[in-house]
């Protein structure tokens, strides 16, 4: 029971920030996703260091199960079966090349900007 009570504040805080972010994004008519606004607010709060440790247990629970929350979206992939089959090879090539370029560029830019190795 205590374990459940420990996670409730953090889950409620993250849910509230997500909802507030959505309302703000809709109200302002901006393209930034609402939950990202909520994340920015939570990050700012965390970085301010003003006693928000009580939220960690709930946040950690949500992060631990985040993979399960993605599953419903992935299962919807079946609707694109034909499109994916027709373009499988070039799509895989683009995905691999772009991933390697991104990694190389990130490490290279870090060196270029004088990051210590």
């Amino acid at each position, binding site marked *: 029971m205590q374990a459940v009570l420990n996670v409730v504040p953090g889950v409620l805080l993250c849910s509230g920030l997500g909802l507030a972010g959505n309302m703000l994004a809709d109200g302002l008519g901006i393209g930034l996703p609402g*939950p990202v606004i909520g994340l920015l607010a939570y990050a700012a709060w965390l970085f301010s260091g003003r006693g928000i440790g009580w939220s960690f247990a709930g946040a950690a629970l949500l*992060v631990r199960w985040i993979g399960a929350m993605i*599953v419903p979206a992935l299962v919807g992939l079946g609707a694109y079966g034909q*499109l994916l089959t027709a*373009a499988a090879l070039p799509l895989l090539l*683009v995905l691999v090349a772009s991933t390697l370029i991104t990694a190389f560029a*990130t490490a290279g830019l870090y060196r270029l900007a004088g990051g210590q190795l």
Partner: protein
Amino acid sequence: MAGWLESLLATLAILAGFAMARRLSARLGHPPWASPVLLTALGAAAVLTLAGLPLARFEAATMPLRWLLAPALVALASVTFGKSGRTSAAAGIAANRGAALFAVTGGTVIGIGSAIGLARAVGLDATLVAALSTKTVTTPFAVAIMARVGGPVALAAALAVLTGVVGTLLVPPLLDRLRITDDIARGLALGVSAHIVATDWLTRRNPDSGGVAALAFVLAGIIASLLVPLLWGRL
């Protein structure tokens, strides 16, 4: 069956499936290809096919999980923090803050640009080009961005997961070959290019570098959330 009961059963089934997939992945030694997310999705798709259940019914029943994705994305801000409440990556990055921010910003922009550019160059369908625009961010960000701009959510989610798996398999050998051995540079490169899958993999081998990767994939997600909606009409 009542709607709420079907939702409860579907949600519990996905959570149980995910817990089992995580256990299987751990038993196999956490290889990137045995991603618990992929294993659970494949299992759920197989059950739907065998039972002949329509996708729309499954989507309606799993609405609670979709709803929870927003608070979970908010909670990702906490992954850059240690248990002490201080950033786990801060100690390593403090002296190189400017260079790290420059690298993550540039890497994310190049990641988005290269995916779109290469996809167009090989003549991929416009839907695939759009879905590839978020491949360089972790799946919850990709889903949030696509939901916001009205893009192909399932396709973008799948490509983001696949990028994480492919990147975790291929990027470390690339960095070894280029003799990039520094913890910060490796953490930044893996965090931006292969996000949460690589961060999980890296954290098991080198917690310091994993902390840097966590910070990198969250920052990359924020940058892409700002950038992709601006590019959306031009993709």
